[in-house]
């Protein structure tokens, strides 16, 4: 891949008749940069304003969560995973809980399943809201950020009331959820949906329809279907390239097979398609919530579990759909109270690997549109 770049370089240099040092301009974007939303470090080789190569340097926020989890018990390690993709903290926890339950062959009460799905979808909305604002900010429009946060704040309030925290909720325990829903939960979710439905059209007015925005994103960072599969791109990035990769549809968990929602597929594969997929997913998430909010079954919110959990010897893998794509948890158990080896397949890691491929030949301004619509969360990539 990099050898290939060098060939391009020599070709261009030969054509331009310039010397090697003068032709390429190498700039460092990050680790502290307004557009990388975290400590991502990109070494970009430019020719004028055209990107010739992007080399991501990772590890600025690597905490070795996988190693850390090897010394934590099955109850304890769930909370650490909130710190990976902090915007879909609840969904990460869900993946871990599912994997443990697979190992223990636990049956989850119906009420807990519905609560989990409701929380997942609320988290997804909150995550997409933040993405929408931050993406618009990358493209130079500041105001959408505040509108997005207005709606996101009401989700955070709901989370705070029921789960006890706003961002890293830690509401998930093996076998169910930590507490029952707060009595106000249904009322507040309904009022949130009302607010959301009244405001979402504003998003279209302000950003989607805007001619500058469309010009900035259409045809930018095109990822073909084959490349998306080959790079392992999932979530909105994969679906914008026409890959059916919604785990909620393909391998339904909890009650996703009982609710009615659409998997959003776009075929263009450019930044605008990725934008459209996320914006439409917001509406689908609201649809799921609307179906479930009045149909929460009565019963336990937690299955009975032993105080000390021990997974049988073997390997367990669970997959869930986070706001960014497919999240996998791979546990190798040796029968003890702690996992022998744990691997988190994070969606951002694979999506980032396609960045270089997508942005070659684009302008440096396009890079922000591409990174914005990839929706990278750096702790998710570094783990």
């Amino acid at each position, binding site marked *: 891949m990099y050898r290939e770049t060098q060939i391009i370089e020599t070709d261009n240099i030969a054509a331009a008749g310039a010397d090697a040092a003068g032709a390429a301009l190498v700039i460092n974007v990050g680790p502290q940069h307004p557009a990388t939303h975290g400590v991502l470090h990109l070494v970009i080789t430019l020719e004028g304003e055209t990107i010739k190569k992007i080399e991501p340097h990772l590890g600025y926020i690597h905490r070795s969560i996988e190693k850390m989890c090897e010394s*934590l018990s099955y*109850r*304890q*390690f769930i*909370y*650490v995973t909130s710190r990976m993709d902090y915007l879909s903290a609840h969904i990460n926890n869900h993946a871990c809980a599912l994997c443990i339950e697979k190992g223990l062959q636990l049956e989850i009460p119906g009420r807990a399943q519905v609560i989990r799905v409701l929380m997942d979808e609320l988290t997804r909305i909150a995550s997409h809201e933040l993405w929408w604002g931050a993406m618009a900010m990358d493209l130079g429009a500041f*105001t959408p950020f505040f509108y997005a946060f*207005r709606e996101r*704040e009401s989700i955070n309030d709901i989370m*705070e*009331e*029921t*789960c*006890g*925290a706003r961002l*890293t909720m*830690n509401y998930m*325990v093996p076998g169910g959820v*930590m*507490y029952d829903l*707060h009595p106000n939960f249904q009322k507040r979710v309904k009022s949130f949906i009302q607010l959301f439905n009244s405001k979402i059209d*504003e998003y279209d*007015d*302000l*950003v989607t*329809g*805007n*001619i*500058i925005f*469309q010009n900035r994103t259409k045809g930018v960072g095109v990822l073909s279907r084959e490349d998306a599969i080959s790079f392992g791109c999932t979530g909105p990035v994969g679906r914008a390239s026409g890959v059916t990769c919604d785990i909620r549809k393909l391998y339904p968990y909890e009650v996703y097979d009982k609710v009615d929602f659409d998997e959003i597929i776009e075929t263009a594969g450019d930044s605008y398609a990725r934008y459209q997929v996320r914006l439409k997913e917001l509406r689908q998430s609201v649809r799921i919530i609307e179906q479930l909010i009045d149909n929460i079954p009565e019963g336990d919110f937690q299955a009975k579990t032993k105080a000390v959990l021990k997974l049988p010897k073997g390997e367990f893998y669970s997959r869930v759909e986070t706001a960014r794509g497919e999240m996998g948890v791979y546990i190798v158990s040796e029968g003890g109270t702690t996992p022998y080896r744990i691997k988190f397949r994070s969606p951002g890691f694979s999506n980032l690997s396609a960045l270089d491929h997508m942005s070659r030949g684009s302008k440096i301004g396009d890079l922000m549109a591409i990174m914005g619509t990839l929706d990278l969360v750096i702790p998710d990539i570094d783990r």
Partner: protein
Amino acid sequence: MFLKEYILNIYRAVASLLKGMKTTGRYFLRPREIITQQYPDNRAQMKLPERFRGEVVMSHDENNEHACTGCTACELACPNGTIKIITKFDVTPEGKKKKALDTFVYHLELCTMCNLCVEACPTSAIKMAQTFEHSVYDRSRLLKKLNQPGSKLRAGVE
């Protein structure tokens, strides 16, 4: 035809821009939509939900008695080594030696408010408080002793 397309393009572009300006302009004219909360001026009105996890506290009743038996379940449940329980041996009236809590050490600087200790506690001795303003000038002040001086185990708690 080219000219018509050209002018239509311009018209559509301008219309989309005006639509956006209408949205921001509307908010400009409606100051009551402002959502800013003026913390810390609104401390008095601010009400945190009862489940909010701010820090771990140990509840004491009016006789300065708590419910902690020093069983170290919370210490074992904590993923970060936040809690350290120092036990001592009390002598019961019958003359038997009994393990009891001496000091409940709580490292707030290590705590991630995951609530696992509260869930693990068999006697509901500890709970989460809603305080959240934990900034101090010295890190050592985050090391807290949760049981009050002179407190003892409530009678009847095993």
